[in-house]
């Protein structure tokens, strides 16, 4: 099936087999989502606690201080790790990606403005720390990041549904009018809150073991509570999302196609396992292994969901493109150079982190 408005493929062959780009797309997107979750969820949680706290030294504000410790770094790495999937999606899905962004061009560009505003507000919060931190800055950041999540979801849904493009371009349909838009967005937001909540709890537990403080237990419990509630809601939202998917996609993931169904089943199973593990933790400080188990289970859930997301994209776009049929002429030497540089880059970053960690521990 072709539609009139689908742009022609660029005639140049792919510089490596499509499966390699596909693999890199999924892997780098997964890493991006980890940082993104910590950033988005952390900002939202800290902003809510900060706004609800009555005084500058209330525990709610202290949660903000914990979060601001990692926020500038996590935002930086959200952006850095986001560039790679942005690159690989353009290699594989240019025909879908560019029209989707052009249809909502100004909103797409607005993402950058929101990111800039959100980022600098985080720094404003950081430097207002002396006064206990002004939670309004974090609240603005949180709103900016939520708006960015909405824009990303919008563009994603648009690139999966080329048959809507003309109606949107001619003003006959709103770009937002897709039944998967809201549950998909909520899926990302709830996931972010769960990951960030657990991350905050793990940080608090680690802090307690290094330098005990009565506040750490409270911080850990708050983090756990956010993770638990968000994961429970996620199960509900997940089924909502599943049931508004187009019939063909739904049929494929619900028994129609073995690999897609396996991904869905394992994703749900891991999600439920995470929920059970989280609900069994009574005292996060003492039950360190249960905490670690929940964290591993949550990260695995996330990974399987990223794989499922990719499979669903494949199902949506199956009538329009077949990645394995794209013409290919592998640039072997450049590809090898990339792999070598990639490994060296990882080793370099690893060495820096290891050395700094070791020397800092020696000082404390």
């Amino acid at each position, binding site marked *: 099936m072709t539609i009139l408005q689908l742009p022609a493929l660029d005639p140049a062959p792919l510089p490596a087999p499509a499966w390699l780009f596909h693999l890199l797309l999924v892997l780098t997107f997964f890493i991006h989502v980890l940082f993104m979750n910590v950033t988005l969820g952390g900002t939202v949680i800290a902003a809510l606690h900060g706004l609800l706290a009555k005084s500058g030294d209330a525990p709610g504000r202290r949660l903000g201080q914990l979060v601001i410790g990692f926020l500038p770094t996590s935002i930086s790495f959200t952006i850095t790790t986001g560039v790679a999937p942005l*690159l690989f999606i353009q290699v594989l899905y240019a025909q879908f990606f560019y029209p989707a962004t052009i249809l909502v061009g100004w909103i797409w*560009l607005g993402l950058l403005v929101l990111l800039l505003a959100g980022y600098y507000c985080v720094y404003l919060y950081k430097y207002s720390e002396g006064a206990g931190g002004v939670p309004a800055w974090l609240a603005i950041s949180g709103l900016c990041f939520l708006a960015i999540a909405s824009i990303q979801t919008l563009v994603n849904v648009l690139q999966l549904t080329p048959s809507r493009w003309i109606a949107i371009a001619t003003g006959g349909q709103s770009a937002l009018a897709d039944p998967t838009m809201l549950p998909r967005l909520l899926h990302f937001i709830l996931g972010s809150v769960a990951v960030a909540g657990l991350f905050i709890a793990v940080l608090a537990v680690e802090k307690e073991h290094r330098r005990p403080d009565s506040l750490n237990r409270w911080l850990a419990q708050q983090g756990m509570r956010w993770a638990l509630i968000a994961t429970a809601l996620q199960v509900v939202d997940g089924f909502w999302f599943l049931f508004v998917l187009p019939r063909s996609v739904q049929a494929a993931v619900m028994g129609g196609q073995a690999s897609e169904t396996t991904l869905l089943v394992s994703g749900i199973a891991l999600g439920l396992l995470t929920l059970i593990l989280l609900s069994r933790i009574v005292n996060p400080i003492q039950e360190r292994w249960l905490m670690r188990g929940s964290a591993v289970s949550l990260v695995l859930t996330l990974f399987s969901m990223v794989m499922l997301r990719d499979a669903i994209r494949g199902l949506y776009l199956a009538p329009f493109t077949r990645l394995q049929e794209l013409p290919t002429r592998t640039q072997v*030497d450049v590809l090898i150079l990339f792999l070598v540089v990639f490994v060296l880059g990882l080793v370099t970053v690893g060495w820096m*982190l290891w050395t700094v960690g070791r*020397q800092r521990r020696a000082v404390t």
Partner: protein
Amino acid sequence: MDYPLFLVPHIGGNWLIGVTAILHVIIAHFAIGGGLLIVVTEQFAARRDDPFRMEFARKQSVLLVLLSTVLGALTGVGIWFTIGLVHPAATAALIHSFVWGWAIEWVFFFVEIAAALLYVGTWNTISRQTHLRIGWIYFAAAYLSLVVINGIVTFMLTPGRWIETRAFWDGFFNPTYWPSLILRTGIALMLAGVYGWLVAGRMNDDPGRLPLVRHLSGWTLAGIVLCVVGFAWWQANIPGEARDLIFPAGSLLHRTFLTGLSALALLTLLTVTIGYLALRGFGLTAGIAALILAAVFFGSYERIREAARKPYVIHGYMYSSGIRVDEVERLNRDGILTKARWAGVAPAGSPAVKGEQVFRAQCQMCHSLNGYLAIRPLVAGQDAEGLTAFLDALRGGRPGMPPIIGTEEEVKALAAYLASLGGGPK
């Protein structure tokens, strides 16, 4: 062409890319030169036990991180966003040829950001030696990302043998690769020296301040020398038609060229005068003036490099309208509207005028009706017949403009549409 058009009112899409790109390259080059300056200064201060210079290095590093990890990274992503919106076909072509180059650059970017954050976060909390090592890693990663991206950026003006071979390295090490790398290295050094002046201008009057200012002047002058050498070599290697857009009096970019040249001359004068002959006259004003002159020079160069590519987006391969050179013959035979899939998509209720579709397909990328490069005043008072003859003459192209493409019937329809605009600005 194949894609929907993204129109930027008043200024046009190319200016949107230009503004984002110029902001990004200034920060990116500063991140390289400034990074080197900071590490060298830290090393010098540690060896001589000089607390003034150490403080200077630390102060600079904080700003560098705030600027490069936030605004630098964001404007970098911004370039991806804007080129994808304005030139989707060209971006898709570049990605298919150079994605591994970009992927390599991304690794350097990743290392650069990690090193920058660690460098700033660990002043005085780790050993000096390790801190310096991280600083050098930061600089190396930042410079290597320039080494890579320079190949792709220069490719667009001088694709060299790639046009025949379509081989990565032929496009990468193209005729302007080395000249441009020298020029950009110079710009990085120049920006470091100039920015250093600005920081020194705000520091307290310390006996160490004026020697530092003189030292920084050396960075600026070294940068200027590299810029002159790089530019002279660069202009010798660009296509003749690009040179014709820059150097002859009255040409499209002549004034920009003169502006850039004057800024560089004034910067040299200022640096020599204040940095060596009248050091005591140094103050914040000199720092600000130097920064403005450096930015004007750099901005002029970037504008020249971008616009000298006209009428192509990839020289000799793809026109700025997104039409490949190898498609022209077929489109003249079969019609441009066979390719322009989105030209016929208009808001519900507006009449489908063929000439307007042809206009959208090949003109609207650069010409608006009344705003930037306005078409209405250009066709004022002309009738369809006269315009047909004029457009036919443009089938051979003119400097800076792609040839008119399409069947005879399409060109007639375009002429009729242009004549119907009524002429004269609204």
